[in-house]
């Protein structure tokens, strides 16, 4: 697998469009999330020139996973849309805290994959490690993420230090929650 990361200006031509299409396949078509989408592409107001993307390609060059990193010093998903998931804590605004969102590692080359199999094991581990390493290079010491509750089990299964920010909530029929992920000490090895 090949890992590609960076802000849009540093990505290969057309790469963001492929990531946005993959996101549409995962979040809109498979998981049924009500997201801003058009012509098979999913993107929102947080897909900006300063947004950092991490994606993996399989051996056939197909996108097999993606993640989005946003600095909390600028508008980000949790603070703008889901602040109630922080359990009363003010949304962080700290250069050492970045947000991880739109994380998915669904392998469409696996015909038996279920809609809930958002995270295929090997791709998930690779993508999570790369996202954390990329965040560390951006100065992050911690990540905060808005995710389906299932990602908490997965993150901890990978041996990554993480804990929830508060109770999950059902929003749009989906159970989501906010989760803190420690970057320092988790990016080595």
């Amino acid at each position, binding site marked *: 697998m090949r890992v590609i990361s960076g802000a849009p200006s540093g990505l290969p031509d057309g790469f963001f469009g492929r990531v946005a299409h993959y996101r549409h396949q995962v979040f809109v078509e498979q998981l049924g999330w009500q997201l801003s989408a058009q012509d098979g592409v999913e993107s929102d107001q947080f897909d900006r020139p300063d947004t950092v993307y991490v994606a993996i390609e399989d051996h056939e060059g197909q996108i097999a996973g993606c993640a989005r990193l946003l600095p909390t010093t600028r508008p980000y998903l949790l603070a703008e849309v889901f602040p109630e998931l*922080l359990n009363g804590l003010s949304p962080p605004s700290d250069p050492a805290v970045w947000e991880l969102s739109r994380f998915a590692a669904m392998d469409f080359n696996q015909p038996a994959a279920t809609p809930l199999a958002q995270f295929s094991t090997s791709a998930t581990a690779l993508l999570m490690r790369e996202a954390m390493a990329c965040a560390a290079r951006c100065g992050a010491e911690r990540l905060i993420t808005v995710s389906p509750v299932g990602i908490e089990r997965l993150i901890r299964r990978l041996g990554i230090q993480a804990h929830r920010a*508060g*109770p999950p909530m059902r929003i749009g029929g989906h159970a989501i929650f906010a989760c803190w992920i420690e970057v320092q000490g988790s990016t080595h090895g």
Partner: protein
Amino acid sequence: MNAAARPDPTVREPPRLSVSTDGYVRLTPTAFHAVRLLHLFSELDPDAAAVAVSPAGASAATLVGFTEWASETLPALSLGWNWRLAAGNSPARYERDGEVRSNIMFIDANGRDYGAVGTDALLREAIAALDWQRAVTDYISNRYA
């Protein structure tokens, strides 16, 4: 700690709580035991289907899932854990499976953290004393009937 289905008349006033900047709610085990937990929801986990195999080679499907509980305090305490329901047992019984996921960090009387491992151990004991199986049984039965 008291299950929602069986309120304890001896329960004390809930402690004053706050969220630390690292996202944890810190409290002593004693304060935790004064908090009432409510069942939020439970779900099956179709991606973690398991098959139990007996020594004789027979297998039985095992239902697996997770359950979420929270306090009514502000900020809320949040706990979730996986469960499994082995069809081979009679009567079938939900059993906690693995670690407890929470936003809780226990502290001692001097305000020192127990740490993740110490906190998890105490939360496992607390869950063992909580009548959570009945709530999960009812919820799963209604949701997936």
